């Protein structure tokens, strides 16, 4: 399986869809769809995420890779497939501001990693808290671009806590990358530096919740 990861990652970074697709098809001849996703797609996206964080890969490459892998994985593991990871109940949202690229990237990478996630779109604090409680979420991923929105995470955390919601919150976006203490200050449970980080954080929590 190792032999597929690096070339698949490089094909994604180069936006070479034909090569990425060919490598994935070859992996599928040897492994089940879930194995191919977990052992080729997820590690490749993780490596791209790490390179994004180091500054050697650009956001456009992360976005295009995520979008491509999402389509690839949807084909072999459709949303109804029992191998899809439906737990914990998770949702992703853009809080208050209107910049949704980060959310789209994380959503694609989560789905390309075999997760099913509610996409809440863009919401303000009160509506988000109500929806999270109504949906009995266990994990809430909040994406922001501007500082005022990042500071509003504090209200979301406080309201969810006041209502006794058993939900963990992971935040991501530019303000958190430029101030590494901000996620703790606003009361989040974790901060993802990349979309792949979100996957590993949710997987870790999934283990803890079992």
């Amino acid at each position, binding site marked *: 399986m190792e032999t597929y990861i690096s070339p698949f990652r490089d094909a994604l970074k180069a936006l070479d869809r034909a090569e990425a697709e060919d490598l994935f098809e070859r992996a599928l001849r040897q492994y089940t769809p879930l194995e191919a996703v977990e052992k080729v797609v997820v590690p490749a996206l993780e490596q791209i995420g790490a390179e994004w964080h180091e500054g050697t890969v650009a956001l*456009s490459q992360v*976005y295009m890779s995520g979008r491509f892998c999402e389509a690839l994985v949807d084909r072999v593991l459709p949303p109804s497939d029992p191998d899809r990871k439906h737990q914990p109940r998770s949702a992703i949202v853009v809080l208050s501001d209107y910049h949704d690229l980060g959310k789209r990237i994380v959503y694609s990478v989560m789905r390309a990693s075999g997760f099913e996630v509610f996409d809440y779109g863009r919401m303000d604090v009160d509506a988000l808290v109500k929806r999270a409680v109504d949906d009995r979420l266990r994990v809430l991923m909040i994406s922001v671009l501007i500082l005022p929105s990042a500071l509003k995470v504090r209200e979301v955390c406080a309201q969810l806590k006041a209502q006794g919601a058993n939900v963990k919150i992971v935040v991501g976006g530019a303000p958190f990358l430029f101030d590494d203490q901000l996620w703790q200050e606003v009361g989040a449970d974790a901060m993802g530096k990349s979309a792949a980080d979100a996957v590993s954080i949710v997987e870790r929590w999934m283990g803890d919740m079992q």
Partner: protein
Amino acid sequence: MNHLTMSSMQRTLTALGQQEPDQVPLFLLTTLHGAKELNLSIEDYFSSAESVIEGQMRLHRKYRSDCLYPFFYASLEMEAWGGSTLFLPDGPPLCGAPVILRPEDIDRLQVPQVASSVPLAKPLATIRALKQQVGDTVPIIGVVISPFSLPVMQMGFHAYLDLMHEQPERFDKLMQANESFAVAWANAQLEAGATAICYFDPVSSSTIVPPALYRRTGMQVARRTIAQIKGPTATHMASGRALGIVDDIIATGTAVIGVSAQEDLAQWKRAAAGRINVMGNLNGIEMRRWTPQQAEEEVKSAIAKAARGGGFILADNHGEIPWQVSEDVLLAIGDAVQRWGRYPLSWITDHACH
């Protein structure tokens, strides 16, 4: 301590000539803080040129910045394109719904006429009035969003990335339209009295697109656009990384580069090697929770890394100080520049020796 001998304009021009002025120039890029000075909401503040003129003059006197920054907000350009703006009580105004809903809309796109645009009249009036007040003593910095970065607001980020990768002909068509607008808008600001144009181009940064793609796209757009702007430009990546494309940025003809807080100023100064001036890179997001002492340390560190020999302007890393940054911190930055920014900066050598 010696008295300052230069005006802000002389100080800035000397630094940009790769010489040491009397003191490190400070471009404290405050926009929203003008509303605080006038006790107005952000929306009310930006509703009239008179408010922004008064706000900029008060900010200039209070914080001792070496420039005036009559930038309203990025979405103002989108208002000229038929878009709208959403005002927040505590942050930069945001762009409303995209004006390009489908890629096909690009085929029918009408470039706004700068001269008859109502939204653009306010910044132009602001620049004219500021120029009347300060003459040639203080640089007035106009702003254009680069033709390569504007589509993030025109059509949404993901739709733009899809276009860039999948529809090269329509991408070229959009760039042509945007270049024509950016050149006219920049030149109108220069004619109104702006000293230089800040060319905001975050999409060109290596944070957003890889260098190879930049060289085929954003760099070519910048080259063509900057060549037609009739005044000096400063390219600003608005927090994006750009150290790996320094030679390419220089080749676009720009005079200054705004540096991200995620990059090292000393590395930038070495890479620039006198070929481009370096501006930056105080972390605007962290600045919100700095104490005045931390502000002083950050200023000192930036000066130590990049100010020797000139070619450096101290500024934040994003091109706009967040609303949440306190008056105390902004005052402390000005104080620190006066204390540690006086050339010949001999303390840096002393500092290194101890």
